[in-house]
């Protein structure tokens, strides 16, 4: 194994080491974390480059090939998620610095913002470790451990604000995530009992209909759906996301739910696709349809900005699973490219929205939508970021959301699946309604009423804008991710999975 192959471990080990150091050396925790985020970004760039030259890579940790050891792998979907996480990682780190600096300047309660900042950095770095570990991992039990890292750190981050509501939400989040990972773990046990291996590559090669595998897939899918908050198992998401600190909401809504979703996606399309019946895909699709409609209606009923954004996450997550039956029936890679587009576009947009909401809340002191009129006069960059992110949620060109919905719609129409097409369109109308409801408030300035005192903070406004622009311009950059996916697919069909390097 060549020295340069070890780049693959950097996205996991950079934040992991940073978490240890940030916990030890608190004065430098921001710089340590930022350095780790930048280093992961660099490593992911190297990985993408190597992938385009050499194709998918497998790295046997400790030199032990599967089935005995654990393998790290890169392929198209994993790399897209890694790029997304790395970019968002740098953005969120910068925003969090601005957020905590402002909070510490004007504490509502002495000591509280300091405690929050102090523990935010190691927890955030561990979250990043878990996410990157999940995207890279090629071992079904190792995936369980990364799920636990993600789950515990997410609950810890959600509890960080220290308010009663957020503590309740965090406890519920923790228990739900425990339930989800237990269900997943039982599925893993069934897989091990059926095939006797844990490596994803070997499982893919071995996947054949067997009595244990249906039980395993059902258990793992339910667990992951619960963790992803797909309707009707979404009940825990809005309070947990809405009551957290702004950077934490951005992390939870933008990145964390995508982690468990990605695993679900991988299991359904990569590993066990030959053994699943069509009815299972349609069931997933109807859950997605339920999420889009029910979530969309719930969004319209919200009075508080952060709750509104949280419910819109519930609705948008529906698009991710409604693609399952489309991809199954279409048989083409188009629908599942759309899923990854949707996931990355939504992640960038949602991060930008929660960042903007946090900035607005810091400056206005509240987030009641009714009283937010005219924020644009004071926070023009933030208001623009919110609107740009909204464009992605609606799915207008040239956003990433547009490309994704367009691909889904084309697949649905080509396969004569009218019902799914109608739901997709209805979801867009609902999104238009709830985005414009807020944007109209932000941009209309009542003539007589100065709403808030003038304060500016560059680190709060610009990361949000950049994330929003990324989501907006993802459509223009579409060829690059598509190239990654296609490169992966060509190799995927040619590759006979043998495991080690």
């Amino acid at each position, binding site marked *: 194994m060549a020295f340069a192959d070890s780049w693959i471990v950097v996205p996991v080990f950079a934040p992991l080491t940073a978490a240890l150091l940030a916990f030890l050396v608190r004065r430098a925790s921001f710089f340590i974390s930022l350095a780790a985020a930048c280093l992961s970004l660099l490593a992911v760039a190297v990985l993408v480059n190597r992938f385009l030259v050499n194709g998918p890579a497998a790295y046997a940790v400790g030199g032990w090939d599967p089935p005995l050891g654990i393998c790290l792998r890169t392929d198209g979907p994993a790399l897209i998620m890694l790029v997304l996480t790395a970019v968002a990682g740098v953005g969120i780190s910068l925003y969090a610095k601005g957020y905590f600096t402002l909070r510490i300047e004007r504490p509502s309660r002495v000591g509280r913002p300091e405690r929050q900042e102090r523990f935010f950095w190691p927890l955030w770095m561990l979250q990043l470790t878990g996410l990157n570990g999940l995207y890279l991992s090629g071992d079904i039990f190792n995936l369980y451990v990364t799920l636990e890292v993600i789950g515990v750190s997410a609950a810890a981050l959600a509890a960080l604000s220290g308010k*009663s509501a957020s503590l309740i939400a965090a406890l519920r989040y923790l*228990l739900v995530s*425990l339930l989800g990972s237990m269900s997943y773990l039982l599925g893993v046990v069934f897989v091990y009992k059926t095939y006797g291996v844990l490596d994803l590559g070997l499982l893919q090669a071995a996947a054949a209909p067997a009595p244990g595998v249906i039980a395993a897939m059902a258990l793992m899918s339910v667990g992951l759906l619960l963790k992803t908050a797909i309707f009707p198992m979404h009940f825990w998401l809005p309070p947990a996301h809405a009551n957290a600190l702004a950077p934490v909401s951005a992390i939870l809504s933008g990145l964390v739910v995508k982690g468990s979703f990605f695993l679900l996606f991988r299991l359904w399309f990569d590993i066990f696709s030959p053994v699943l019946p069509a009815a299972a895909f349609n069931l997933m699709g109807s859950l997605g349809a339920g999420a889009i409609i029910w979530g969309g209606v719930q969004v319209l009923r919200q009075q508080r900005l952060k709750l509104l954004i949280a419910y819109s996450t519930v609705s948008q997550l529906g698009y991710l699973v409604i693609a399952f039956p489309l991809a199954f029936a279409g048989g083409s890679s188009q629908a599942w490219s759309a899923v990854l587009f949707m996931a990355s576009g939504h992640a960038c947009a949602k991060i930008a929205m929660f960042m903007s909401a946090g900035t607005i809340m810091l400056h206005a002191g509240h987030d009641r939508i009714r009283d937010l009129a005219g924020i644009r006069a004071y926070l023009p960059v933030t208001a623009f970021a919110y609107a740009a992110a909204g464009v992605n949620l609606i799915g207008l060109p040239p956003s990433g959301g547009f490309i994704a919905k367009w691909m889904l719609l084309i697949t649905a129409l080509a396969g004569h699946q009218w019902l799914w097409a109608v739901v997709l369109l209805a979801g867009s109308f609902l999104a238009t309604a709830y985005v414009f409801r807020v944007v109209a408030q932000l941009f209309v300035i009542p003539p007589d009423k100065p709403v808030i005192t003038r304060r500016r903070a560059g680190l709060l406004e610009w990361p949000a804008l950049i994330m929003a622009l990324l989501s907006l311009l993802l459509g223009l950059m579409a060829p690059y991710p598509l190239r990654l996916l296609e490169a992966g697919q060509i190799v995927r069909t040619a590759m006979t999975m043998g495991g080690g390097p």
Partner: protein
Amino acid sequence: MTTILYSVTGLLLFVFGLFALIVCPHPLRKILGGNVMSAGIFLFLVAASYRADTGEIDAVPQAMVLTGIVVSVCITAVALVLSTRLQQAADQGARRRRKRRREEDAGE
């Protein structure tokens, strides 16, 4: 025979724990339920690796169970501290409200 017996026991424990986790309102009971659930899964996992006829053991499931036990203790601890803190916050809220009520009474 032994394998099947312990496998079934493990699955039943899993279901008991699941039921408690969903139904019981008290957080401590929920956390206990989670612990019973994980114990059931571990029992089920190791029961597979045991072969009474050859006496041979598979170390991989045992290592997995060790990992799982440690993870579940960790989650238990975090959940317990969260619920204690929650109770504390609720008490403080009640105390603050009582104080405000008393002040209002005095004001009238």
